[in-house]
């Protein structure tokens, strides 16, 4: 079988859980050398073990980093280049959800925190990876936005602002870097069942969050949550050479939900 990532170096942030972990697993199966980044060292180890279970010979580098700290970002990019000599593809994905409440109650500190991780973290990642890719003359980047980054969802001021920012950055920088053989796109996941969404349902209804989940997906055209693996397939496609003509655009993966806001 043809492996789209044979010998390629793929860098993934937020790789300890959810979408980052699922993408790491998919891409590892297709022959990539992985550089995995997360704030949480234990969860990174867990992802590595899962990767090695399915691909025993996989080459995996782990770096603990807070993506909202530019020095730490520079460091994870340097570590990757030192270890593997390149960054062929970058899944710029780490993010947090923030509180759910009215805009007036959201709070300045909370707003700054969400922006620091979800928007600044993505910007720092692009800044340092693009330098490497521009020198290489090739590369692909997938940023994680959200349906909340292309539609108004409500009760998530910080998240909405940060994810709309990610969509904007993606378009802006995609336009700049197409000429260097680099494509930059974003995904806009809807409700994918990950620890983050579990947390968010627990905010809505701490005692009965599973019921709350069922209610939540009723209006979804496909009437279900997505699975992290489904996002992994999209990320793998978008990071591969097969998607080079797809640039500066945002791709929803949401069971059709974005059409209903």
């Amino acid at each position, binding site marked *: *079988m*043809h492996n789209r990532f044979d010998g390629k170096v793929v860098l993934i942030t937020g790789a300890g859980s959810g979408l980052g972990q699922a993408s790491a697993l998919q891409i590892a199966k297709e022959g990539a050398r992985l550089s995995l980044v997360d704030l949480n060292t234990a969860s990174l180890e867990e992802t590595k073990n899962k990767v090695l279970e399915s691909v025993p010979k996989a080459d995996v580098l782990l770096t603990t980093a807070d993506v909202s700290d530019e020095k730490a970002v520079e460091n994870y990019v340097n570590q990757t280049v030192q270890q593997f000599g390149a960054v062929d593809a970058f899944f710029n994905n780490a993010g947090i959800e923030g509180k759910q409440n009215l805009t007036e109650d959201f709070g300045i500190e909370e707003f700054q925190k969400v922006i620091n991780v979800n928007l600044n973290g993505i910007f720092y990642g692009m800044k340092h990876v693009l330098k490497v890719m521009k020198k290489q003359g090739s590369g692909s980047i997938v940023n994680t936005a959200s349906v909340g980054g292309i539609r108004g969802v409500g009760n998530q001021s910080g998240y909405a602002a940060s994810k709309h920012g990610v969509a904007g950055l993606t*378009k802006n920088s*995609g*336009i700049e870097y*197409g*000429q260097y*053989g680099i*494509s930059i796109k974003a995904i806009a996941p*809807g409700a*994918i069942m990950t620890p983050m969404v579990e947390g968010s349902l627990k905010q809505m209804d701490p005692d009965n969050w599973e019921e709350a989940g069922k209610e939540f997906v009723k209006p*979804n*055209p*496909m*009437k279900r949550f*997505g*699975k992290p693996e*489904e*996002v992994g*397939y*999209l990320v793998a*496609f978008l990071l591969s050479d*097969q*998607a*080079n*003509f*797809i*640039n*500066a*655009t945002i*791709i*929803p*993966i*949401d*069971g*059709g939900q*974005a*059409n*209903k806001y």
Partner: protein
Amino acid sequence: MTFPVLEGKVAIVTGSAMGMGLATAKLFAAAKAKVIVADFNEEKGKEAVTEIEANGGTAHFIKVDISNSDQVQSMIAETVEKYGHLDVAVNNAALTPDNAPAAEFDEAYWDKLISIDLTGTALCMKYELQQMIKQGNGGSIVNISSVSGFRPQPNNIAYVAAKHGVVGMTKVAAMENGDKNIRVNSVAPGAIDTPMLRGSLEETGQTEEEFAPQLSLLGRFGQPEEIAEASLWLASDQSSYVTGTVIHADAGYTSR
């Protein structure tokens, strides 16, 4: 070589005698689908089948004018008769853009283009949906739109109207059929090097060097195979949570 992601599936690709449709039919066959090459160009359509078979694929030609409802219904019936079911469809056939300003458009050409690019696409989707609903185990439909489904192109009033319409009908069908696991999405190509594009260049007297940078941030035309890859991904089960979505495969054109 590619992933056998369409193994066991039957796929109709309309307008697959040449251009992007042909590249799509070839890629789908390489991904192990049984492919219906549906086109009104019989000679080129049969050539496509011969080529696919020579490469070890499975394909069958059906002559169809997608603007004719009876012929579209027969296309579905013949597909099911031949291969037993229908799982995937790429509605790709279209007529070349018009070339007159809005104040002067040719009404006969408007009718013809709308009957193919808009109504023909809707007819194909209608009868594909009916068949998939009857089968009861889902399906994936990809309608080919265009950058002209999002941005105006002067002198292309009928084409731009039709391609905007393709985007709208895709989303409506997606909303209606998500619970049946029938997914409906669109690919919106930028400037792709096909006979259609070469024809338009000839008509307007432009060269690739002049035209490509206007439309493509990569400074080159896309290759038909690049669009085929996006359709393949949407056609396959790897996109099982994606519906009502448009993949813009235009090197960034529509984000400006």
